[in-house]
């Protein structure tokens, strides 16, 4: 765990966000996170899998086995309606939180 660690809870949210683009496998999700954040968010890629398990157990995403682009068996995750709802509420909460933090930090 280093200083580039994510805020707690944000990994789940970002995974859900990634899946709004369609079904992705774990590696693609990690790639997407890394590229979009310009390598600032160094997700220890392995911790993605516990998160995926957690999300699937909650019924927010759904995994199905399929073939990856290089013809290997991979598990593709898809957002469920419940997951979409969670993403919306999480996003709203996140906006509220970052807005509040920003207001506090700009005070001087």
């Amino acid at each position, binding site marked *: 765990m280093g200083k580039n660690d994510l805020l707690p809870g944000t990994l789940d949210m970002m995974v859900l966000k990634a899946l709004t683009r369609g079904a992705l496998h774990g*590696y693609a999700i990690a790639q997407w996170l890394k590229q979009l954040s310009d390598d600032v968010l160094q997700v220890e*890629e*392995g*911790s993605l899998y*516990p998160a995926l*398990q*957690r999300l699937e*157990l909650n*019924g927010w995403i759904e995994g199905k086995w399929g073939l990856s682009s290089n013809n290997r*068996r991979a598990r593709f995750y898809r957002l469920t309606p419940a997951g979409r709802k969670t993403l919306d509420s999480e996003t709203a909460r996140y906006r509220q939180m970052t807005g509040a933090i920003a207001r506090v930090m700009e005070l001087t």
Partner: protein
Amino acid sequence: MPRRWQRRLRYLLQNGERARLLREEMELHLDMKIQELMEAGMTESDARGAARRQFGNFALHQEESRGTWIARWLGDLIQDTAFAARTIRNQPGFAALAVLSAALGIGACSMLFGIANFALFRPLPVDDPSRLASISGISFRRGDAGHSMSYPDFEDLRQAHSFQSMTAFYQFMPGNISSGGEPQRYWGSIATANYFDVVRPAFAVGRGFDAARDDKAGEPPVVVLSYHLWRSRFGSDPEIAGRSIELNRRKATVIGVTGPGFRAPKRCSIRISGFPFRCWTASLKPAWAGTGWKIAAVRGSRRWADSATARAKRLRPRSST
């Protein structure tokens, strides 16, 4: 939410399978990572090392993923328990009713088990119980066993078959005991003189019947008391042997007390179970000899005892009701 429960159940049932699939998923990730790094110009071994570093501890992540399911399950269990407790508090009447019906159900079951255990499974507290068997008559009309037979039938049986030993007793003879307190009626049984030689229970006091010494003409009949009767009626009197008591308004001499827990062998199909008789009287008087002798107890080899009932069925042309 049934779907949530279905999912959870599937997770639990397919634990091993899931762990394997998760591993496959993670390995695929690593391989793709290595490929990516190699395309960027790394050698394979460097790429492998870098990918591993970035991925983190493989086994740890796998454990964390598994932990997710288990933690989830535990959390839900706690939540459900709390919910149940709240519901019970809100509806104490309904909860009491539920508890009561469950308690009654459990009570009935354990009582039935108690009876079955007592009647079917517990061996008699006698010497070598596995070699003891009982014979009873079979009803021609109804085809069921456990009927009484006449004393002559018993005599015929004894002569026709060379059992090691054989005794007979008459069940359910009421006995009014009027010494040692208020007169009271007890269930007893009357038995042939060799009864205790065949059944061989333990004795708390004194001895069983002895054909050579007991039941002589002009002497009062002899009685063996049950342990329970001895304690409740005669205050566990250690000097009871030889004492004269009044039984059915006649004098009878106590010669012994059976050990605790002994019950007279009763009819049975495979094993012998007991009925809690309180007293036994010996004397085989002609007046008793004609009528319905309930059961004959016999001692033979173990194998014989096991098949006794089957055998009794075959040899009993006259011993029907």
